[in-house]
């Protein structure tokens, strides 16, 4: 076997079994046609088609994955649980800091939009029972928070299309 042939054999042996490049159905002369003039083999020349498509698919799948995760995070931030807690505490603190007779108008646009999406009527969003406020934006029961003032408080939605809630301190109990 000539020197070139021996080198080609050693080179072929160095191929890993799971290599993408596989020489088959060729003879030695055909393989030599790939060789660089100085006898070294340069086998990376014609892999353009394989690399591009695979990498594009890979990047697209990764971007899709990231997009789904970001959408999940965004939805959690605007979710019913967070908004219910936020509005319930907000209203409780407003009542705690108020005095009779007082009427407060609270913009609850986000709450109205979410409640509408979940099939909750505007008049059912905020309920005051004794000294407990319940804010409900989904069918899961709502969030409760109590206030420490002994006032007679009523809450009702503002006239449509305003997305406000009226909280009225009527007087002492």
């Amino acid at each position, binding site marked *: *076997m000539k020197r070139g042939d*021996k080198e*080609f*054999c050693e080179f*072929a*042996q*160095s191929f*890993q*079994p799971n290599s993408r490049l596989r*020489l*088959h*159905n*060729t*003879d*030695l002369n055909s*393989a030599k046609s790939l060789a660089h003039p100085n006898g070294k083999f340069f086998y990376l020349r014609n892999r353009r088609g394989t690399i591009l498509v695979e990498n594009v698919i890979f990047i697209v799948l990764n971007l899709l994955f990231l997009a789904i995760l970001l959408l999940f995070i965004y939805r959690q931030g605007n979710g019913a649980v967070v908004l219910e807690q936020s509005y319930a505490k907000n209203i409780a603190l407003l009542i705690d800091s108020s005095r009779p007779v007082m009427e407060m108008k609270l913009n609850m646009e986000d709450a109205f939009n979410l409640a509408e999406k979940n099939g909750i009527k505007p008049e059912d969003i905020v309920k005051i029972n004794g000294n407990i406020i319940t804010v409900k934006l989904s069918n899961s029961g709502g969030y409760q928070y109590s206030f420490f003032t002994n006032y007679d408080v009523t809450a009702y939605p503002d006239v449509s299309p305003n997305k406000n809630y009226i909280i009225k301190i009527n007087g002492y109990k």
Partner: protein
Amino acid sequence: MLKCKNCNSSNFLKNKKAQTAETMTWIIATLVIIGILIIFVYLSVLVSKTKVIGVGDVQAGLQKESPVLLEKTSLGKIINDKNENIIESILNQGNSG
């Protein structure tokens, strides 16, 4: 199929350095990713502790008086402003949050 006279199957088993290197790369990459995720979860815990809705006069280090109480003190001083220094020293001692 190309045939090589001096080739034998045992030669294929010796040259697995690429597989070993790639596996080690993946193991170290996994450990690094898990470590970074743990750091980020810990940072989330720290950030969640900042969800304290405070006011300036209650936060530690800022002994600013509440406007309501300042107003009452001022009205009281209008009626009787003797011993103002004593009043100020007692009030400064007595406030904490």
